[in-house]
């Protein structure tokens, strides 16, 4: 585990932000932190980045109790992100990299690599004021990853990105994971969760209401439903409930005790089966279901 969060509590004057939150974030994986607005995601992230402290509970970073020195091994892209407008791109990134404990020469050479890689070589001496929003986002991303952190925390990284930059970002996140970095990824955009995440946790009302491996969570929320494509008249089939139907397509639910093979045997007595697929619940559905259950 890169990050072990144990029984974290955080209270503000008028509300509880985190209530007994425990999470295990495995090394080298992309971990999706999901939840509606105000659920406590940002509070949790701010405690991990040591911007604020918890009221109770503890965090272990790579086996050690989390302490100040660890901030240099964390890269954090906040949801509300900005840059010094008057500074030049190069010197600004150099400053941010040095604040993360990099030596100057090392930071310059790493930054140059990133500038070449993202094809922005000519930006070094541009003032940030002159950059478009997309260009600023690239700059902010470099600032987050240049010191090669062990843990990368991205809070709503795709908000405000156009599709081209969003794709670039997705590729870079996957590339960073390949190189062994753990990514903690907070979002309420479920499509990106399905594409990127290995593990997820869902927070609602300051509590973890769902967590685990992505496939395992999806399996847990399977409703024993299957989608079929067929020719002929479906009619009524014993042990099978038709959830919805369109000409040539249907979604079926198998009743308790009926095996897949038996069910198929029953179906092909009525129609010619062209396609048979298990319905995997989308994270969007799971999200809505779990959040409304816990509200």
């Amino acid at each position: 585990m890169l990050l072990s969060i144990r029984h974290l509590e955080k209270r503000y004057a008028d509300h509880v932000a985190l209530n007994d939150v425990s999470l295990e974030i495995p090394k080298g994986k992309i971990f999706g932190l999901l939840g509606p607005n105000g659920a406590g995601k940002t509070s949790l992230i701010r405690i991990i980045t040591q911007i604020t402290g918890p009221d109770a509970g503890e965090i272990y970073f790579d086996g050690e109790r989390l302490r100040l020195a660890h901030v240099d091994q964390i890269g954090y892209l906040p949801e509300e992100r900005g840059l010094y407008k008057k500074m030049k791109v190069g010197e600004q990134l150099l400053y941010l990299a040095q604040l993360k404990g990099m030596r100057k020469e090392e930071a310059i050479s790493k930054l140059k690599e990133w500038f070449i890689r993202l094809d922005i070589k000519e930006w070094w001496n541009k003032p940030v004021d002159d950059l478009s929003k997309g260009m600023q986002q690239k700059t902010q991303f470099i600032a987050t990853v240049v010191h090669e952190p062990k843990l990368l925390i991205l809070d709503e990284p795709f908000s405000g990105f156009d599709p081209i930059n969003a794709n670039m970002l997705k590729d870079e996140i996957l590339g960073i994971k390949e190189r062994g970095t753990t990514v903690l990824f907070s979002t309420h955009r479920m499509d990106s969760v399905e594409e990127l995440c290995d593990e997820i946790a869902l927070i609602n009302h300051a509590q973890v209401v769902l967590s685990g491996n992505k496939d395992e969570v999806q399996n847990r929320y399977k409703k024993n439903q299957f989608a079929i494509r067929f020719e002929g008249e479906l009619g009524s089939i014993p042990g099978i409930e038709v959830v919805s139907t369109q000409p040539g397509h249907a979604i079926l639910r198998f009743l308790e005790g009926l095996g897949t093979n038996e069910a198929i045997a029953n179906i092909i007595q009525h129609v010619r089966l062209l396609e048979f697929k298990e319905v995997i619940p989308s994270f969007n559905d799971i999200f809505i279901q779990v959040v409304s259950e816990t509200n």
Partner: protein
Amino acid sequence: MNKILLVIQREYVTRVLKKSFWISSLLAPVLITAIYAIPIWLAMKEKEQKQIAIFDPSHLLKSTDLQDKELVFTFTNIPEQAYKKQFAKAGYDAFVSIPVDVLANPKGVHIYSSKNIGLTLKESVERLIQNKVRQELMFKAGISEKIYEDTQVNIDSETITVSENGGETSSSSAGAMILAGIMGLILYVTLLLYGSQVMNGVIEEKSSRIIEVIISSVKPYQLMLGKIIGVGLVGLTQFVLWIVLTIGLTQVTGKLYASKTKAFTQMTQVEHGNATDDVAKAMQDSPMGEVTKVLESTNIPLILVAFLFYFFVGYLLYSSLFAAIGSAVESATEAQQFTFIVMIPIIVSFLMAQYTMQDPDSTIAFWASMIPFTSPINMMVRLPYGVPMWELALSMGLLVCGFLACSWISARIYRVGILMYGKKATWRELSKWLFYKG
């Protein structure tokens, strides 16, 4: 620790590289040098001579009375009514008509001129006639010429400060007042100037939303302290530039004048025997001359060190409060409702300084120079007049304590404020932030 240095470096370098910094650093010494140099330059400049015609049927004035460098008098016999239309054509700048009965009717003197004559010309003509009338009246009353000469005395006293152990130094209270005023004013302006620079820097970080990135690398108090120290060092740099450039410029202009004066003296010795005296007098009379006199009689290193101390610690105190305000708001306009609270003590101490300058040993002056908020300006105003060492030490100690208290309060508001968006800050809110847990 290393990270604070990085923050200080950024705050310092980005500001020092700005054009506005260099403009203000260069402009102030040029202005001060001008204040010093212009009176001397004016004194050295060869004065334009004015031609004046005099109609004097009373025979009050003799040609020996009319020796003046700038005014050339010519007697005329054409009476007032006729000549007042002609004098300008005859090439005179002014025409003075003295009535026959001037001793009985001194108000009957008239000065005609084609253009508006300068105040100096009017005054010198008036003084000339007035002295002469007074002299004549005295002679008439039986006072001898000898007695009249003897009554012409001038008093130019020298003030001497006697220290407790009996040592004497000559001092100039006018000069001390000017020096005190200058230092008070500089502190007043710079405390406000650099304090609000810190505040605007904090607002910039918050409104541009870079703050959260930064404080995921450094602790909020490190960022606040780094910013305050960085801006403060910019201020100190500016002072050093001001002092060095002013001394340099005045030295250069002084040397320039000295070499000019030499040539000037040799050239004009015959006609203007006392030209160098004039320049020397102008040098002494110019405000900087007075200050130079005080500087000679006071402990310059002490004043300099105290000045830098009071600037820096006073600045630390106020700018930490300014930083707290900056953290609580999202724009400069929103900040206004809070800044006046911090500006009031600065303005009050500047107003008190006027009083302290008049009476530097009064009880009010004493307390004003002890209370941390008012002490920077008021102690610097008192210092040129001489202050016991224990008072200075106590005032400095109290200022340091004041700074520590203010920065503790400010740091607590700051760490909460920088992450608060959308919520309009109120005094109540700020006081609650003081007690938030980390």
